[in-house]
């Protein structure tokens, strides 16, 4: 089995900052929190998003406030864990591994998720 080279938390932060200069990233006690704004396309709203990640866990993604609304009030938004928490990938090692960059996977997937949400 191929060994994977886990990316450190500070490397992850640096990648996010370099690709998304508008994002603010903080590392506290091994927990990376990145906050920023995403607008996936010209017709979309701008969403405030938060990404949290600790090495050895699945990255978590939140859309701030009440920006996400189900089509029918009281209904559920497809592909979410909670009303503010999109599910971006199937939680298995085949989908996401700790050698992957948040900046190259989670953020693009979130942008795509928000596009489909908007449609």
């Amino acid at each position, binding site marked *: 089995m191929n060994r994977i080279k886990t990316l450190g938390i500070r490397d992850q932060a640096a990648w996010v900052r370099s690709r998304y200069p508008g994002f603010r990233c903080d590392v506290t006690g091994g927990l990376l929190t990145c906050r*920023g704004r995403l607008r996936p396309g*010209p017709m979309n709203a701008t969403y405030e998003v938060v990404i949290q990640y600790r090495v050895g866990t699945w990255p978590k993604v939140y859309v701030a406030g009440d920006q996400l609304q189900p089509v029918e009030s009281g209904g559920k938004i497809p592909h979410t864990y909670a009303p503010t928490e999109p599910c971006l990938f199937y939680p298995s090692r085949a989908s996401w591994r700790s050698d992957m960059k948040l900046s190259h996977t989670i953020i693009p997937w979130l942008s795509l998720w928000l596009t489909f949400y908007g449609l």
Partner: protein
Amino acid sequence: MLLAEPQTHTALPSNRAEWLDRHLVRVCILSELTPTQFRNAEEKYHAVGDWLAADGGLLAVFAPEVYPQGSMLLGTTVRPYGQSEYDLDLVCQLHWCAQQPPLTIYDWVHERMAANETYLEMLEKLKRCLRLNYTGSFHLDILPACPNDGNGSIVVPDRRLECWMHSNPKGFAAWFLERCRLRDQLAERMMKGSVEPLPSAVPSQYKFPLQRIVQLMKRHRDIYFSGGRDIARSVILTTLAGGFYEGQRSLSLALEGVLDGIHYALEAIPTVPRIENPTHPGENFADTWDQAKYERFKSYIRNFRVELKAVLNPSLTEQRMGLEKSTERLGHLFGSGRVNEAIRIEANELNERRNGGKLGIASGGVLTALSQVGSAAVPRNQFFGR
């Protein structure tokens, strides 16, 4: 033959006008004849032409010539709102016949059509034309005509008034296509490779912005007037759109320009104006308008313009509401069923792009084509959860 809109976009829209251009084209394609329906209609009209002109038939001596007119010739068909049947118009032009009484010509064409058992069952007499009902798909309106002079001008019998009416469908189409090609370099190049000055019919997939504008104006007209008796005639929409089009390549910006032009022109005229046939200046297309109909037409243009501008340049509040507010407005204009279907097609295309590994992302989080400079690939993923 007239290719004016690129069908495969390598880039994703980078501004609202670009997004709207693609959305509006999808709405038009959903509203017009499918390629299969188009071929079917063409076959039917060739068969009618062959029957009318057949050797030994009643009309053979007049050498009838059958050709499409109206939206089929202009490439501006839309399915009537709430109906599944299209109107397609044909001219059956006889020769050496303008000295005959109008009703005689009409009756001759009717007699020839009725001599065919299949046509007899589908045939209906209308004021100026003979209608063949192909139930469930379309009807062909056959307009008997005689030449008026050598310039494509014809006269057609009016059964009710028992007189000849002037018309020039070929001349009008030539004017319209001239307007379509305004400042259009691409089309100029395409035209050089083509011999025929007029398309016998424009294939549904490729159209000029002006043809799309007329389709969209007809579509909103059908919804706004909801089948009422004062509904604005297509020829008026076509004439005004052609007159105010300034050659923009972006469909949405061209449509905005046309609506601005019509709006300001009409707001300056308080009483019913003449809307002249650009190829026959004596003819007033608005001759049935009274003040009430005119006011209603003005408010149709006003409403169209306001809604379109709100989609192109939304307020901050509406921007925050994202696509939802825009599709609501577009639904008012063109029908929410059609608009939602166009959005579904957009979602499918995005999915195909993602599955094909052709989706990229720019540094602001904006999704782009992978080919775009500075973009990084969006890796495949599977959204999870209910």
